């Protein structure tokens, strides 16, 4: 990353989310720079999706604050939602609607100008033109991912949040998605935040990695910094190192 001071797009301070007696995330604080790609990396139950949901306003934190584009997300999220979008394998679009109908509905929800042209143009970019008039529910996982990404790019978001963007995709389609995200960021200067437990993906896309475990950020840095700091060859080894060391420390303590 360059040494010049970049605008902070996302700022979270002391974010905690408890579900009854379960603490999903605890005192998370982080800042995300404009034009960067930041990845939340962690195993299942680490708190990645909870954190993304709070950033999107789908989930209210128990305590703490989130500021996006300078706006308090807990009070004024409608000021910034038009500049954001989201894709996740855990949400769908209506299955009986065709791809074109779904994209048209969302283009209108986001207030996109010349919605039909924009749908066509995004469909071309995402290579979904050939199944625009098919029901969304009958598409393969790879096709659905591309459609979900098309929906997420309809409003050309300044902040794109992705939850496991290549989950359940074959390596070829996964590579295509990652390439497209890189191209989108280069073209628009958008900020991308993703949650993943795909190490190769994070290593390729992310400028900054926030390593999560048991609802806390346990380490942070660029993939190269983390690999070097831990004396490893890959981010996957860093991840395993963190996970196992902490686990064995916990066992020793008990």
């Amino acid at each position, binding site marked *: 990353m360059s040494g010049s001071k970049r605008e902070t797009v996302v700022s979270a301070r002391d974010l905690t989310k408890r579900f009854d007696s379960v603490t999903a995330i605890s005192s998370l604080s982080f800042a995300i720079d404009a034009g960067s790609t930041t990845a939340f990396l962690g195993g299942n139950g680490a708190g990645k999706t909870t954190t993304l949901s709070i950033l999107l306003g789908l989930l209210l934190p128990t305590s703490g604050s989130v500021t996006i584009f300078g706006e308090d997300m807990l009070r004024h999220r409608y000021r910034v939602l038009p500049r954001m979008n989201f894709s996740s394998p855990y949400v769908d679009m209506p299955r009986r609607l065709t791809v074109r109908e779904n994209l048209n*509905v969302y283009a209108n929800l986001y207030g996109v100008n010349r919605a039909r042209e924009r749908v066509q143009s995004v469909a071309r970019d995402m290579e979904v033109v050939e199944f625009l008039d098919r029901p969304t529910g009958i598409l393969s996982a790879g096709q659905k991912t591309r459609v979900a990404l098309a929906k997420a790019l309809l409003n*050309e978001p300044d902040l794109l949040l992705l939850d496991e963007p290549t989950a359940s995709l074959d390596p070829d389609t996964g590579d295509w998605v990652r390439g497209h995200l890189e191209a989108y960021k280069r073209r628009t200067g958008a900020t991308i935040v993703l949650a993943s437990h795909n190490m190769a993906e994070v290593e390729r896309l992310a400028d900054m990695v926030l390593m999560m475990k048991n609802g806390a950020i346990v380490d942070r840095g660029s993939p190269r910094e983390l690999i070097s700091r831990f004396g490893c060859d890959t981010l996957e080894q860093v991840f395993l190192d963190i996970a196992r060391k902490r686990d064995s420390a916990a066992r020793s303590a008990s």
Partner: protein
Amino acid sequence: MSREKDIHAPAALFSWRRLGAMILRHLYILRGSWPRVLELAYWPTMQMILWGFITKFFLGHSSWVAESAGVLISAVLLWDVLFRSNLGLSLSFIEEIWSRNLGSLFVSPLRPYELVASLTAMSAIRTLISVAPAAFLAMPLYDVWVFQLGPPLAAFFVNLLVMGWSVGLLVSALVLRFGMGAESLCWLGIFLVAPFSGIYYPIETLPTWLQPVALALPSSHVFEGMRAVLFEDTFRMDLFLNAAGLNVLYLAATTGFFLHMFRIARVKGLLLQQGE
């Protein structure tokens, strides 16, 4: 494409375009499935045919029905307005849960009350599709012209439509909070008010201690008003105003309840968890 920053302006407090988008989403479903449209009209039509024969029978055996041949069929059709209005709203909402669409909807600039407005619009559309064919068929089949109720019919229709929205919003809020286990309330919930609404009999038929319950329901005032038009040829403004006043109260309360449940769903993380 050139970047269009104007679409990134803060979302307006209310947008007709977003409302239209949500209505369009449901119209796409109806347009894509003629069996669904036929299903909407099927039950009210069958009800009307059944009650048409019952009316024919009672015309010779009941002096009360003989005074106004349309009293049973009008009651059946107006009850269906209430039933379909409730179902039209709650099913349109549950459609979003079935398709795991709530998460995508609420990261868009769509506001919860815009969703509520779109649900009421879809309820009105579905109700008209349901009830209109039966109303028109009653004339050639039984010589009962429901529209003989005249302009008051519009007042009855609107009041029952709005009451259906209140029940539908209440049910939708419970489904949002408690999940698909509460789904059957969409079909069953409305029958809780049926015995007290005086659909086929005057409210005075109820035991005295139950009559206050009936009077607290907009529907009982509507059905009393319907009988006043059919038997006395009088439009009872007092009954209309009672029904309208109660509807305003209940719609405000259930909209507030839905928005409160929406907030609880955001606290409990239910917007991403809902689905089949």
